C-alpha cells in the first residue's frame, strides 16, 4: 500500500535562504506524526509543500499515492488542512464559511449542516448567528478552521499549531477527537511548540531544525532511557543559552 505521506529529498529555497534542506521520510497510513522544531525551522514550509500550496525547489512529495505537483487536485480532495494562519474568509459567519467549504468539496448542504452542528457542538463553538469570523476570538477562529479541515472527512489531516489559543477543556476534547480519528484509520500530521501535546498524542516524531531533519521515528526509539521529548529535542537542536540577562 502507498504511504500516506512520502518525502524524497525535498528542499525548498527562498533566494539564499534554505527553508527545507533535503528532507526525506515516509509516514504510513493511520500514523500520527508530530512535527516539532524551533520557530523558523521549516515545519510550516514542509506542511505547505505537503498540502500542495507550495512547490518544492527539488525532490518529490507523494500524498496518499499522488504526486503533490502533478496530481494536486487528487491530493486536495483527500486531505484536510488547518494552516497556522487559518486562512479563513473572515467576512463570513462561521456557518456560512463551513457551507462554502463543504460545497467546494462537493458535499450536500444538509450533510454540511449536520456535520457542522456536530463539530461546533463537540468543540463548544456557539457563535452569535450574525457574528462574522473577523469578530471571533482567536480560539474561536481556531475551532472554525479545525472544523473546516475535518468537514469533508479527509483521509489525511495536516494541523499546524491547532492547540494555540485553545482553552484547556476544549484542548482535551480536541486531543480525544484526534485520537479517535486515528483509531478510525485517518493519518494525522501535527505541528506544535507544545512538546507535552506531541508526547501525549504522537507515536511518531519528526524533529526539524534549520530546515534539516534531525530525527524521525517512534519517540521510544529516538530517546534515551528516562529521557523526555524536551530533553531529546534540546539535545538534537542544541541550546547553549542560559536565560540570564547580563544587565538585569
Amino acid at each position: 500500500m502507498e504511504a500516506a505521506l512520502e518525502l524524497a529529498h525535498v528542499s525548498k529555497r527562498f533566494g539564499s535562504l534554505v527553508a527545507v534542506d533535503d528532507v526525506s521520510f515516509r509516514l504510513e497510513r493511520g500514523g500520527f506524526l508530530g512535527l516539532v522544531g524551533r520557530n523558523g525551522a521549516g515545519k510550516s514550509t514542509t506542511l505547505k509543500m505537503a498540502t500542495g500550496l507550495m512547490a518544492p525547489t527539488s525532490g518529490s512529495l507523494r500524498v496518499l499515492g499522488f504526486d503533490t505537483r502533478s496530481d494536486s487536485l487528487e491530493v486536495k480532495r483527500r486531505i484536510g488542512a488547518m494552516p497556522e494562519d487559518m486562512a479563513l474568509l473572515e467576512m463570513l459567519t462561521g456557518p456560512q464559511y463551513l457551507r462554502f467549504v463543504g460545497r467546494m468539496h462537493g458535499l450536500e448542504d444538509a450533510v454540511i449542516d449536520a456535520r457542522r452542528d456536530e463539530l461546533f457542538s463537540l468543540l463548544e463553538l456557539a457563535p452569535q448567528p450574525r457574528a462574522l469570523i473577523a469578530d471571533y476570538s482567536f480560539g474561536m477562529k481556531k475551532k472554525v478552521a479545525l472544523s473546516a479541515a475535518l468537514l469533508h472527512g479527509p483521509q489525511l489531516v495536516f494541523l499546524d499549531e491547532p492547540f494555540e489559543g485553545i482553552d484547556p477543556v476544549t484542548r482535551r476534547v480536541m486531543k480525544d477527537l484526534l485520537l479517535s480519528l486515528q483509531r478510525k484509520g485517518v493519518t494525522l500530521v501535527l505541528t506544535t511548540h507544545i512538546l507535552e501535546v506531541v508526547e501525549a498524542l504522537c507515536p511518531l516524531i519528526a524533529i526539524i531544525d534549520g530546515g534539516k531533519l534531525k530525527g524521525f521515528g517512534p519517540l521510544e526509539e529516538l530517546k534515551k532511557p528516562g529521557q523526555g521529548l524536551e530533553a531529546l529535542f534540546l539535545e538534537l537542536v542544541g541550546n547553549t543559552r542560559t536565560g540570564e540577562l547580563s544587565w538585569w
Partner: protein
Amino acid sequence: MVVSLPRAVRALLEVHLRTAFNAGLRNAGLAVTTLALLGALALWLLLLVPLCAVGVYLGVSLASNVDALSTASGALYAGAPLFGAVVSLMTGDTQELDFEKLEPYPMPPWALFFAELLASFVHPVMAVAAGVQLSFAAGALGSGAGLGVLVALVTGLTLQAAVRSLLASGAARLIRRAQAFVVFGLAAGPVAFLAVLSRVGEERADELITRVGSELGGLPGGLQATVTLRTGLGPGQALLELLGPLAAALLLLVLAGRVARRARSAPARTQEGPARLWTFGAPVWGVARLQLSALWATELGRFTVFLPLLWVVFLPLRAQAPGVEPRPELVSLFIWVILPTTLAGMTLNQFGLDRGGVKALFLLPLSEADVLYGKALGLGALLLAQASIAALLVGVLVPQHPAFLVAGPALTMTVGGLQLLIGQWTSLAWPRPIPRKGLKQPAGSVLMSLVIIATLFGTVAPLGLVWWALGSRSPVGLALAMLGLAAAVAALHRVFTPLAARAVAVRREHLVEALS
C-alpha cells in the same frame, strides 16, 4: 468525492456576494449598506446614461469633426482602462483572486479564475466601469460602425478584467505570471484597435472593423492584423511602433513581479546581517518612516507603485493622432488623477498596515496628531515617488511642455492630500487590517468604494476644469496654480489634522479591537 464544477463556481460567487454584503453590514449597518448599494446603482445609471449620450454624439459627429473628436475620444479610451484598473484595486477582496485561501480546495485553477472573473462583473463598481466602456460602444454604434465594435469592446472589457485578475494573482502567486503575460498580450490587440478607431475617419473605421472583426476568432492573429492596419505602412514598421509600449509594459510587469517576489522571500534578509538602525529627528518622521516601510514591505504597497504605470505605456497610442493638433496634456491628465486613487485602500484606511501593531503605536509617547501627520507624510512620500516615476514615463512617452510634468505630480499630490484628509476620518470609521501578503485591498465594502468614487469625482471635476482651461493658454501658469493648490492642501492638513487627532483619542479602543 466528485465536485460539481457549476456548484462550486456558484458557491464561489455566493461567497463573494455574502462577503461584500457582510462587510457593508459590519461597517455601516443594514440601512446604510442598502442605501450604499442603491447609491452604487444610481451612480452607475447616472454615469451610464449621459456617457452613452456623449458616446453616441461623438460617434455621430466623427465624420464632421474628426480632429477634435478623435483627441477627445482617445482621451476617453485612455481613461477607461485606467478607471478599470483603479476599480479592480479598490474593490479589493470581492474582486481579486486569493489563491492563498482558495488553493486548498479541489478545484482546477481555471475554474477558480472563471468564478472570480464572473464575480468581478457583478460587483457594482465594476458595473460602473462596464458602463463607461459601453458608452464608448454606443459611440461607435452611433458612428454607424456596426456591431463589430461592440463585440470588440465587450471582448476588450472581458480581457481587461481577466488581465487584472491574472496580474493580481500572478504577483501573489508567481506561478501564474506566465499566464498573465499571455493574456496581457492578447488584451493588447483590442486595446490597440480601440486606439486606432479613435483617430481615423468613418470610412477607415468601417474598413478596420470589417477586417479586425474577421480576425477576432484568433486573437493573436487579431493583434497582428491590428498592428498592420494601424499605420498602413506594412507589418514590420507597425509592429515596431507597438513593440515599444508592449515591451515597456512587460518590463514593468517583470519589475513588479520581482518586487513582489522579494517581499515574499523576506526571510532571506535574516541572513544578511543586522538591518540598518533607524534615525529620525522627530517622532513624526519616525511614524512616517514606519508607514513607508510598512507600505514597501507589503506586496500590495509595492505592486501599487507599478500597476498604474502599466497603463502609461499605452498613452502614446492615443496621443499621437495624425493630422490632429495634439493636446497630450489632456491624455496624460488621466494618469495624474488616477494615481492617488490606486492608493485609496491605504489612504482611507491609514491604520490598516499597523494591524495589531496599532496597540504598540498607541503605547508609545506620541501625540495622536503626530501619528496622523506621520502617516500622511509616509503615504504622501509613496505617492510622490509614484508621481515622479509617472512623470518620467509620461515625459518620455508623451512629449509635452515640461510645465505639465510639474503640474501633473502637483495635481496628484493635491488629490492625494485631500484623500488623506478624508481618510483620517474613514480610517477611524471603518478600520480593517491590511494583509501583508497578497494583493487584496481591504476596502471591500461598497460604502468605502463609494467614498473613493465620490472623492475621485469630487476633486477631479473642478481640477480637471482648471487643467482644461489653463493648459492651452499657459502651461507655466497651470503648473504654478497646481503647486499652489498642493500647498493649500498641505495647509489644510495643519487645520484639520488636530480635529481628527481628537477623534483618534476617542476611537482608540475601537481601532485596537478592529485591527488586532
